[in-house]
């Protein structure tokens, strides 16, 4: 009896957890999403409304799209039980070649992007080969890659900056072209918002239908409705914000690229055999191998994919800053790794989600941005970011050790304790469990230790 009431009670939260792909890490991600909301609200108040200002939001997306793209690849690497330290250097290496190709060889920009992706794939194949087939730990392979490709960038570019043509900059700092009647809002952004809203509703209906087909216990209808209302609220609000910016601005192109990647990779990790195999390899390498998973191939592709995404991130960053330089991408790997761990991934592999990592990345992004708006110096911003990372993972580790897997579990436990009588059928004369702290008992419990 107690079980069912409890399940019902936590049903709503559990459903929310399913937005993040369910599984054992979802509770953590609901927690981090809550943290993101709190941080946004705090900064919105502290900056006097500057945080959720259209121009600032557009900046936020443009500034962070490439780190978030890196986080997508990084979480897959980390789920598989590896790490990639080379992403910043790979991004810079690709960036300088792509910039040179357009600048010196007059390669048209779409071809240049293709070239960049091919370079990423080649680098990824190189690193993946060492990790998967030779068996060198990814930490070492990518530490080497970090040096090799940083050096490569400076060698090719002569440690100088190479500018890129204007047409190319659309992927980094560009906006959707406006069309249709002038209603004071950016029309493409409104359409985009509408599309997202429709997708959210359809998705929820699909999920419920699937649950019906599986015959599994469905969340009550109100949970779905509340969820949809909240999400639609956020979408409408965000759409109006992004659409209401300066004339000529809209939701940034880099944000759209990011959004598409999030959707695609979420699907890949959650719904495909490849995705399953990544979790299997990270969760228990031996068991995966004995289940017929080609673990080497999985490791190879995960590493390769990371480098492709790093190249893409590099090109977007070059497009945003209109040039490729020797210092591009320094420290990106750390931002991406931090995003992934704040987003609930396990250091030992096997646990993590794309959406969680994006939320983790947004936490860092909003912190960065908000602190800058408040005029806090780079020095202190770094200190705060470091503490946030430590705190986020620390809370997670602590609550796991206490046998409460999540913050949610903590809340539930406290709620449950005051009413043990309803199902326990305990004799009333049984001594109370709660430590009363009376002098007698305290001394007695202490006396046992020195024995």
């Amino acid at each position, binding site marked *: 009896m107690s*079980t069912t009431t409890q399940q019902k009670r936590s049903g709503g939260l559990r459903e929310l957890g399913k937005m993040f792909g369910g599984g054992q890490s979802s509770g953590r991600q609901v927690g981090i999403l809550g943290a993101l909301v709190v941080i946004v609200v705090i900064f919105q108040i502290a900056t006097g409304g500057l945080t959720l200002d259209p121009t600032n939001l557009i900046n936020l997306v443009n500034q962070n799209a490439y780190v978030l793209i890196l986080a997508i690849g990084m979480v897959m690497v980390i789920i598989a039980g590896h790490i990639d330290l080379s992403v910043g250097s790979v991004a810079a290496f690709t960036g300088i070649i792509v910039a040179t190709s357009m600048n010196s060889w007059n390669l048209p920009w779409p071809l240049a992007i293709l070239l960049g992706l091919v370079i990423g794939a080649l680098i990824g194949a190189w690193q993946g080969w060492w990790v998967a087939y030779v068996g060198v730990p990814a930490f070492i392979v990518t530490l080497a890659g970090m040096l090799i490709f940083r050096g490569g960038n400076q060698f090719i570019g002569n440690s100088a900056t190479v500018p890129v043509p204007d047409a190319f900059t659309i992927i980094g700092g560009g906006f959707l072209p406006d069309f249709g009647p002038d209603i004071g809002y950016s029309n493409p952004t409104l359409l985009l918002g509408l599309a997202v809203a429709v997708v959210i509703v359809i998705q929820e209906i699909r999920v419920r239908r699937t649950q019906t087909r599986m015959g*599994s216990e469905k969340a009550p209808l109100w949970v779905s409705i509340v969820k949809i209302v909240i999400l639609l609220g956020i979408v409408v609000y965000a759409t109006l914000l992004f659409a209401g910016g300066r004339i000529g601005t809209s939701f940034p192109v880099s944000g759209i690229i990011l959004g598409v990647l999030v959707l695609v990779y979420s699907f890949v990790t959650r719904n495909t055999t490849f995705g399953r195999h990544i979790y*299997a390899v990270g969760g228990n390498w031996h068991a995966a191998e*004995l289940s*017929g998973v*080609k673990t080497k191939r999985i490791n190879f592709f995960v590493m390769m994919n990371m480098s492709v995404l790093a190249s893409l991130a590099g090109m977007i960053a070059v497009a945003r800053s209109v040039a490729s330089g020797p210092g591009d991408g320094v420290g990106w790997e750390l931002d991406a790794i931090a995003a992934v761990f704040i987003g609930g991934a396990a250091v030992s592999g096997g646990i993590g989600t794309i959406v969680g990592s994006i939320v983790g990345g947004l936490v860092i992004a909003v912190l960065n941005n908000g602190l800058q708006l408040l005029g806090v110096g780079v020095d202190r911003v770094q200190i705060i970011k470091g503490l946030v990372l430590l705190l986020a993972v620390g809370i997670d580790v602590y609550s796991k050790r206490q046998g409460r897997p999540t913050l949610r579990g903590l809340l539930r436990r406290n709620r449950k304790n005051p009413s043990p009588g309803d199902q326990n059928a305990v004799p009333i004369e049984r001594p109370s469990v*709660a430590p009363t702290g009376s002098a007698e008992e305290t001394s*007695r419990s202490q006396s046992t230790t020195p024995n």
Partner: protein
Amino acid sequence: MTANPTILEMRSITKEFPGVKALSEVSIEVKAGEIHAICGENGAGKSTLMKVLSGVYPYGTYSGDIIYQGQEMRFKDIRSSEHAGIVIIHQELALIPELSITENIFLGNEPGRGGIIDWQVAKTEAIGLLARVGLSDDPDTQIKNIGVGKQQLVEIAKALNKSVKLLILDEPTAALNEADSQHLLDLIRGLKGKGVSSIMISHKLNEIEAVADSITIIRDGKTIETIDVVANGVNEDRIIQGMVGRVLENRFPEHESTVGEVFFEVRNWTVQHPLTTERLVVKNSSFTVRRGEVVGFAGLMGAGRTELAMSIFGRSYGTYLSGRVFKDGKEIQLRNVSEAIDHGIAYVSEDRKSLGLNLLDDIKRSIVSAKLSKISKGSVVDKVAEHTVAERFRTSLRIKTPTVDEGVNKLSGGNQQKVVLAKWMFTDPDLLILDEPTRGIDVGAKTEIYGIIRDLAAQGKGIIMISSELPELLGVSDRIYTIFEGTITADLPSAEADPETLMKNMTSKRAVSR
């Protein structure tokens, strides 16, 4: 207090996990200088009770009282219970393989001053402690270089060093062979004479019958009864009855075998140790399996049973040297695990936690994990089909869980094993290799697994069952091979075999050809 013959009393212990009541009002009384066995099916709450006692679940997370040597105890962690002289030896040994015996014995308790270890003292004391447990190995030997049996003894030596008064042994003989088990049980009896009481959790009822002075039976988180063996005597059937709450007529399923043609054959299989090239782990072994037949493999620990099975299953162990595999009269190549699966071969590992399951996964994902392609279109997993499959196995194998979305780490050993069996049944194998399929599983679940094995055989599948428990092999198999040092030494129909014959062939060097 010294007149009190009771060393430990746990009163009305109740322990809840979110959604589950693992222990409900469990009470147990252990007298000084006795061996007290705790029996119960998997998931009955035995291990939870011992974790409460040893402080793994600290005071305040459970309700009830622990009275030890006349005092109420409130352990806040394992250290505080060890201070009081209660030492628990877990099923999974807590030794560090790269360290020496001495270093392991004194780990966390090093003799010396100001953080500087006095290795002379440590070594001398280690030799003394080893002698007390009947070991004469060099204390500088690394743990990884001694066998599991000896490792278990080192654990006990470590406990003795902590001046243990109450020793808790969780499945101490699960990984040991008969000789090592016997030695360990003798040692526990010897300790009893020296004033060390023991609590022993074991699924091996014959051992309990042999050594226990009293037995507490736990079922579904409740104390069922305590049997005073000294006064009243006991037999296995009596224990089983208490554990499952009913009289188990027959532990092994009645079966009529309908053995068909030979469909699987291995010829002259030879495998090298993965690291030591001069060592042959499997030597020139040949065997056959018929349709609908359960073939037992008997051998002592280290005889090469698992190595033989794993090397056939897609060369997942050692270096293949020579040998051929035939299925349905045709030679097949099994160069990796996916080829083996494609040829309809399944291998259920003896080590389900580290080789059989991804403990981070949930039940439904685990069940389909060895043949995802079966429920995928393109490479997209059909989650509805996945759920349906998992539900089907949950019902047919009676996996005890509220939903198939539950994590496999939350299941008891027996139910985890059922998930592993489901995972391999889902691959539609023709040949199932089951390596110690009932290790660490309680009697009730064992009987269920025997039933599943016979059902699979009745469907015409071939089964290879590797087991250290001879009664189980004799009760379930149709035919038994014995292995000794990598060589198959006998091929006996189980109707003609008995434990003595098997044991003789498991320890003899001359190979019997057929």
